[in-house]
């Protein structure tokens, strides 16, 4: 999981979370999808 922090013009922060392919594969295994 990665987090990108962006500060808006009004000073508020937005955190964008992204999840890599390895995690996706792990998810599939864990969930037995």
């Amino acid at each position, binding site marked *: *999981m990665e*987090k990108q922090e*962006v500060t*808006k013009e009004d000073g*508020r*922060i*937005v*955190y*964008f*979370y*992204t*999840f890599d392919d390895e*995690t*996706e594969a792990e*998810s*599939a295994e*864990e*969930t037995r*999808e």
Partner: protein
Amino acid sequence: MSERRWNPTLEQWVLTATHRQDRTFLPPADYCPLCPTAPGAAKEYETDIPAPEYDIAVLENKFPSLRYPAPVPDVEGTELYPVGPGEGVCEVVLYTQQHNETLTVQPLHRIERLVRVWQDRFADLASRPFVDYVFIFENKGKVIGVTIDHPHGQIYAYPFVPPVAKTEIDAARRYRECTGRRLWDDILDEELRDGRRIVASNANWVALIPFYARYPYEVHLMPRRHLTTITEFTKTERWDFARILKVVLQKYDNLWGFSMPYMMVMHQAPTDGGDYDFYRFHVEFYPPHRTETKLKYLAGSESGAGVFINDTLPEVKAEEFRNVEPFYMEP
């Protein structure tokens, strides 16, 4: 303006946040501030999210009840009426960029991702010196008072331990002092031994309508292992938490065939540096529906006396809820 005012009669802080009167109220779906900003959108059509797409995002609330640094209070306090700045953080957690979805319909791996985001936000906010308590919650549905339909939850980082958590913590501390045992250990043991109020379970989590439920369909999620905060989950506990959370959400929607409104709250140990080993992480759901068409209101007894009147028996409601699809009773 936002500030906290002390109520000496209940020994509780009240937050005043007058700017929230002007907050966004049920905007149309094509003007949702929590959807991504369309690529190339003109300035006036930008949403609150400065990106053309996102997976899970968290943003600071545009109309916060608490902020840091906090403005100077509007009024001066007195010995009788202490006043403090409304220091804290209010965040909005966007479960998905899809406006018309809910947490319930998210695939399991996306709910597990959300749990990781909650863990990250808890750890981040807990590390800030002005934060004594991190409260993760979701208000879902117009009858709860939701003002934006986009699927989202919230996090309040308070500069004090809020009264419901404090009451539970004080009770658990006294129980520990009197018995030498942890209160939630004994609650879970008794619920498992009795069994009638269990609605779902897996290897690491139990969902139940507790003996002392105040709402007819008040489900609690309790970890089998002693945990004080969400950051202590093992990987397996995290996945199992996502599983049982999804099951309970599905049961709610399947109960009457519509998307069930609810409040979902996480009770965790404070982050003020104290020792809370006697307390236990757990999740509580408060759905306002007492039947398919009738709501439970917090009226005179509940609001004025603090005495909840539950029109149902938890044992009966748990049996009904346990048998709603999906059936999920893993050992």
